[in-house]
C-alpha cells in the first residue's frame, strides 16, 4: 500500500487561482468573468497580470453565463466563475441552452461546492451541482481532490475544446498529489491498488478515502482506492477493472447521493457487472452552518463513514 503524506494544507480554490495565473501567462485566449466574488475565487493574480482579459459582471450570474457563451467567438476561452450554487442551479437554463446545447467552449468554474464552506448555511451549500451538470449532454464534469490537482485540471480544461464544469471548494485540505502532474480528463487516478473493496472517491473525499484505506488495512482489509476526478465522462474501464477484482464498492462524494458520482457508478455496475455498492454522500437533505469538520461528521462524509460503508459492502459481497 502506498503511503500518502502531506506537508501543507491548501484550499482547492487557490489551486484554481494558481492555474488561472499560469493560463494568463501561457494561453492568450483565456478570459475570465466573475459575479462580484473575485477574492473568493482567488482570481486576484490573473486579474492583476491580465486586467484586459477579465470582465466583472456584477451579481448577475445568468447574464454572466450568456456573456461567456457570446465571448467564445474568435477562439476565446471564457471561464465563468462564482459560487457553485449560483454558477449552476441558479443559471441552469442559460448553461443548458446557451452553453451545452449550443456546444460553446465555456468553462463554468465554481468554488464553495458542497457542505464545507462553513457558516453561510444551506443557500450557499449546493449538493446537487454534479447531478445538474452531468445530466447535460456534452458537459464534462470535474471535481479535483487537492490544490495541485485543481491547478492541473484548470490548465487541462483550457486545452480541451467543449463545455466543462469544474468544481472546487473553500476549506484547506491536505496537498498530497504531485505538483507537476499532468491532468488527463476522463482518466481515473489509481491511488492505491487493493483486492477487497473498491473505493471510488471524488473531490475532498479522496483524502478521506486514503485515511479510510489505512484504517481498513489495520483490520486486515486491502482496499483499492480510485480518485474519480472526472465524473463525466466516467472512466468506465477503470471502474469495471476494479470491481471485477474486488467484488464490491463504495462511492464517496461531497454531494447528494441522488444524482452524484455514486449514481453514475451504479449505472455502470447494473449494466455491466453487478456488485454491491454502498454510497457515502448526503442523504436527501439541505446543509446548515458549522465548521467543515463538524458538517462532514454530521453528514457522514469522512473516513469513518467510508470505513463503515466498506465493511458493509464486503459483508454484502460475502453474504
Amino acid at each position, binding site marked *: 500500500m502506498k503511503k500518502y503524506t502531506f506537508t501543507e494544507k491548501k484550499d482547492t480554490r487557490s489551486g484554481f487561482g494558481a492555474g488561472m495565473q499560469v493560463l494568463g501567462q501561457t494561453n492568450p485566449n483565456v478570459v475570465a468573468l*466573475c459575479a*462580484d*466574488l*473575485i*477574492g*473568493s475565487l482567488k482570481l486576484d493574480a490573473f486579474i492583476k497580470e491580465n486586467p484586459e482579459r477579465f470582465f*466583472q*459582471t*456584477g*451579481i*448577475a*450570474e*445568468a*447574464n454572466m453565463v450568456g456573456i461567456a457563451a457570446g465571448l467564445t467567438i474568435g477562439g476565446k476561452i471564457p471561464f465563468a466563475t462564482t459560487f457553485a*450554487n*449560483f454558477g449552476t442551479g*441558479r443559471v441552469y437554463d442559460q448553461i443548458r441552452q446557451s452553453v451545452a446545447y449550443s456546444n460553446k467552449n465555456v468553462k463554468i468554474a465554481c468554488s464553495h461546492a458542497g457542505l464545507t464552506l*462553513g*457558516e*453561510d*448555511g*444551506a*443557500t*450557499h451549500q449546493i449538493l446537487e451541482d454534479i447531478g445538474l451538470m452531468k445530466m447535460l449532454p456534452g458537459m464534462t464534469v470535474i471535481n479535483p481532490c487537492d490544490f495541485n490537482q485543481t491547478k492541473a485540471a484548470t490548465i487541462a480544461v483550457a486545452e480541451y475544446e467543449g463545455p466543462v464544469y469544474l468544481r472546487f471548494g473553500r476549506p484547506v485540505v491536505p496537498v498530497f498529489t504531485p505538483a507537476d502532474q499532468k491532468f488527463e480528463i476522463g482518466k481515473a487516478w489509481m491511488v492505491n491498488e487493493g483486492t477487497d473493496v473498491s473505493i471510488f472517491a471524488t473531490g475532498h473525499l479522496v483524502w478521506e478515502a486514503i485515511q479510510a484505506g489505512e484504517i481498513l488495512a489495520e483490520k486486515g482489509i486491502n482496499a483499492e482506492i480510485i480518485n474519480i476526478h472526472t465524473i463525466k465522462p466516467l472512466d468506465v474501464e477503470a471502474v469495471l477493472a476494479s470491481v471485477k477484482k474486488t467484488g464490491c464498492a463504495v462511492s464517496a462524494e461531497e454531494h447528494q447521493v441522488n444524482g452524484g458520482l455514486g449514481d453514475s457508478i451504479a449505472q455502470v455496475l447494473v449494466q455491466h457487472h453487478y456488485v454491491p455498492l454502498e454510497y457515502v454522500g448526503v442523504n436527501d437533505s439541505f446543509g*446548515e*452552518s*458549522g*465548521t467543515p469538520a*463538524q*458538517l462532514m461528521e*454530521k453528514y457522514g462524509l469522512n473516513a469513518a463513514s467510508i470505513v463503515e460503508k466498506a465493511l458493509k459492502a464486503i459483508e454484502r459481497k460475502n453474504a
Partner: protein
Amino acid sequence: MNIKELEEKSKAYRKKILKYIYNAKAGHTGGSLSIIDILNVLYNKVLNVSPENFNSPEKDIYIQSKGHCVEALYVVLADKGFFPEDDLLTLCQYQSPYIGHPTKKIKGMEQNTGGLGHGLSICCGSALAAKKDQSDVKVYTVLGDGEMAEGSNWEAFMFAAHYKLDNLCAILDYNKLQITAPNADVMGLEPLDKKLEAFGWAVRHVDGNDVESLVNTFDALPFEAGKPSFIIAHTTKGKGVSYMENVLKWHHGVPTAEQYELALADIDG
C-alpha cells in the same frame, strides 16, 4: 415610540449586532450596520407584525432579500419578542438554527433567503395575493445595491408596476459598496431613480441611517396610488463604527477584542 426612543433603539441594536457577530466570529458586519435603522423603523413604526399575529393572514410581510445581513434582522426579531435574545449566542454555530442567512426555522422569518435576487419576486407574489383578497396587508423588502444587478429584480420591477402593486414597498440599502469594490465600479446603477420611474415605480430618496427621515418617508406610503413604491435609502456600510464605515473589508469582517471595545465606545460616543 418617538424619534428619540427610536434613535436609542438603533444604538442598542448596533451594539447587539456587534456582540453576536463578535461572539460567533462570523457575520456580515458592514451591511447589518447599514440596514439596521431601516429595520428599526420598519419593525417599531411601520409593520403590523408581532409574535402574536405572526400566523395571521392579516399581518404585514417583510422579506429580507439581502439575506446575508441576517444579524440585523435577528437582533430586531429578538427585541420584538419572537425568540429569547440569548439564542443568538449560538449564531452560526454547529447545529444552531440561527444560521448565517434567514430561514423559516426561526419564528418571525417570513422566507428563506441568501442567494440574492429572490426577495422582490416573492414580495410581488404576496402583494398580488393581498390585492386579490382585498386585504390591507402591506409587503416590504430590503435589497442590496450589488443585488440590484440581478436580472430577476428587473423582471419583478416590471411585474409590480404592471399589476399596480401599490401595497408593495422596496427599500434599497444604497451603501454604495458590495463585496469586491464600490458599486459604481462593479456594475453602475445610476441614474437609478429615472430607471425605476421609467419602470413604473414611485421613487423617493431618503437618508437611510436617519430614523426621523425614514419615519416621514414610510408615513407617505404609497407615494402614488396605483404604483409600487421604491425608497432609495442612502446609507453607510458599517454605519456607527467609524473605523468600519465605508471600508470594504468589513463586508464580513469580525472585530478583534480590542476593535470590539472600540466599536461599542464609538456607538455610545
